[in-house]
């Protein structure tokens, strides 16, 4: 009988998440929902995100009220068909609650959930290395301008279930060294290669977002033998223009009020930009050398709303598999950058999505990354 009852529980967004706040229910008790329909808004210290329904059915019960903060795995509500009686649902809830232990979710915890500082050449990088060591070719994810490894918080945990996943803060970002050299994607690609060396990885699938996409392309030129495949998410270097307002605003904004609207350009659903996300970026920007590093990086790649380098020749020259993933509503690098690519390059466009599909359409991006790696 319980087979037709599906618990809706506090999801785990990102490796570090231990609890979340049920910001709001998006469906009411009695509403019929489809699998994948947005059920609730969940706030964590890093991000506000929607929780998509794990199954089809009727939302029979809202166990937790909006506004409540609960541990990961805690029961939020109950989905079931109309054939299930209220008594059965009550019994299910009672049993769930009596057995639930916070912090006991999914015993299969990832190898390392804390990022570590690693000396790579002359630089010190913050690196998060998760997932099984013996699960084939690892995946290296490279974030974009102004980002850091937490840009992959909704991807790394999920992908680590099947493969080794490495994320890191590029020089000038997060907690890594603020020395960005000449700030070009080519220079950053050399750092990425050195990181693979330091980790003893011969070959990796490379995922690159935005400026990190340009870095991935440069890495494919610099060391094609190290690159098993390229997944380019809203990459720089394929189109002509860039939203200079974002770049300049990101560099100059030094308070929450001025930075928040800039960060909202990154996503289609503006509500995704949480206070904590803004605060995290402000904290990063306060570090000595951070703004100088960002300025150098921006100057190396972008000028007056134009991208300085056309990297399409690198994509065409690379012999391995390439896929391109883009949000249809990208306000930073327009989706038109995905047009006119070689026919063998699969292009996925996500409707209703801005410049951060890995956050906004995490499940779909994760599926694309997994499938592509499996096929390559």
């Amino acid at each position, binding site marked *: 009988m319980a087979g037709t009852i599906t618990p809706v529980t506090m999801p785990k967004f990102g490796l570090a998440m231990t609890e979340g706040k049920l910001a709001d229910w998006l469906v009411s008790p009695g509403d019929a929902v489809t699998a994948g329909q947005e059920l609730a808004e969940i706030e964590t210290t890093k991000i506000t995100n929607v929780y998509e329904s794990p199954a089809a059915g009727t939302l029979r019960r809202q166990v937790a009220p909006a*506004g409540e903060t609960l541990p990961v795995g805690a029961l939020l509500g109950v989905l079931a068909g109309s054939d299930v009686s209220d008594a059965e649902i009550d019994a299910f809830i009672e049993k769930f609650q009596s057995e639930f232990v916070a912090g006991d979710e999914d015993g299969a915890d990832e190898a390392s959930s804390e990022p570590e500082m690693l000396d790579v050449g002359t630089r010190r990088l913050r690196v998060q290395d998760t997932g099984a060591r013996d699960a084939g070719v690892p995946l290296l994810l490279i974030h974009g301008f102004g980002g850091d490894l937490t840009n992959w918080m909704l991807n790394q945990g999920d992908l680590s279930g099947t493969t080794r996943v490495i994320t890191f803060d590029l020089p000038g970002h997060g*907690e890594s060294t603020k020395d960005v050299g000449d700030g070009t994607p080519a220079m950053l690609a050399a750092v990425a290669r050195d990181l693979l060396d330091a980790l003893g990885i011969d070959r990796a699938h490379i995922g690159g977002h935005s400026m990190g996409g340009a870095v991935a392309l440069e890495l494919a030129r610099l060391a094609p033998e190290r690159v098993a495949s390229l997944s380019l998410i809203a990459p720089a270097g394929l189109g002509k223009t860039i939203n200079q307002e974002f770049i300049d605003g990101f560099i100059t904004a030094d308070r929450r009020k001025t930075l928040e609207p800039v960060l909202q350009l990154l996503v289609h659903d503006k509500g995704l930009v949480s206070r904590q996300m803004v605060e995290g970026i402000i904290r990063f920007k306060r570090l000595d050398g951070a703004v100088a590093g960002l300025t150098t990086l921006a100057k190396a790649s972008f000028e007056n709303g134009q991208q300085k380098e056309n990297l399409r020749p690198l994509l065409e020259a690379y012999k391995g598999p390439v896929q391109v993933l883009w949000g249809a509503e990208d306000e930073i690098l327009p989706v038109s950058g995905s047009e006119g690519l070689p026919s063998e390059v699969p292009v996925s466009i996500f409707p209703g999505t801005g410049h951060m599909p890995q956050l906004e359409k995490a499940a779909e991006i994760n599926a694309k990354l997994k499938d592509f790696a499996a096929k390559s």
Partner: protein
Amino acid sequence: MSKKSFRQAINEALRQEMRRDPRVILMGEDVAGGQGGSADNPDAWGGVLGVTKGLYTEFGAERVFDTPISEASYIGAAAGAAATGLRPVAELMFVDFIGSCLDQVMNQAAKFRYMFGGKARTPLVIRAMYGAGFSAAAQHSQALYPLFTHIPGLKVVIPSSPYEAKGLLIEAIRDDDPVIFLENKVMYDDEEDVPDDSYTIPFGEANLTREGDDVTIVAFGRMVNFANQAADRLEKEGITCTVIDPRTTSPLDTGTILDCVAETGRLVIVDESSPRCNMATDVAALVAEEAFDALKAPIRRVTPPHTPVPFASVLENLYMPDPARIEAAVKSVMGYKAKQEA
């Protein structure tokens, strides 16, 4: 990034700035501690509560100066050194000792720039401990930041956590004006994640530790933590608060305070200093004058009574604002609306 105590965060800020800039020097009573003692251990104390421990060992007698117990001379010397090319960080130990050297701060350091027609720079930081809670009684427990805030020419910083302390102290040391940096002595063992690298937090920019719809709470220093605790409890009852940590009382981020009051319409101010002419009265006056139309209820101040800080714990506990009193104040301003509607 690693967990650091308030004490470690301050020590690290001093260390990193002393490494970065040879003009940064430390002075104060026992900032090294043990100079000339029979144990031959000149880094014995590192300040009376160990905040500057290890800095003498790293930077030596040319950068870290133990002083005689003689506040007027060394606080004045810090002002004079600041005006002539050094960037001194002077530790006054307990802020209550300002009585012995106020002239050097109030009439000298604070005034140089203005009275010399903009031709002086006095990059001076005076660090001092403040606050009740240790049964240190009337002469070692005061929260005298309103006294300094009152004096034009000084900047006044009250960090509310280890992260805030490190960034604000580095900012203070790099600032070209005299800065009073007040550390709540009860907080030295508080811990949180603090970046290992240097960073700065600008002055005059309030931090919102949370945002809510119902009441704005402005709190200073340790009171920010109390306000957050109160807001946590209130949220469970459906009352959401915005908590403002102004970080600096001079300059004061009046814009953020007014904006938040405009959003919530209710204001509670939590100030550990004596209630007359303190920050609570200052913020209340600001809001009464500039945001009168936004107010849905009278402004409430949560402060100690107008008494010296008592010694016995039972009295000191009565004296201090605490989360329960903040909670009650918030509920009372919420209740005011209900009364009007009724």
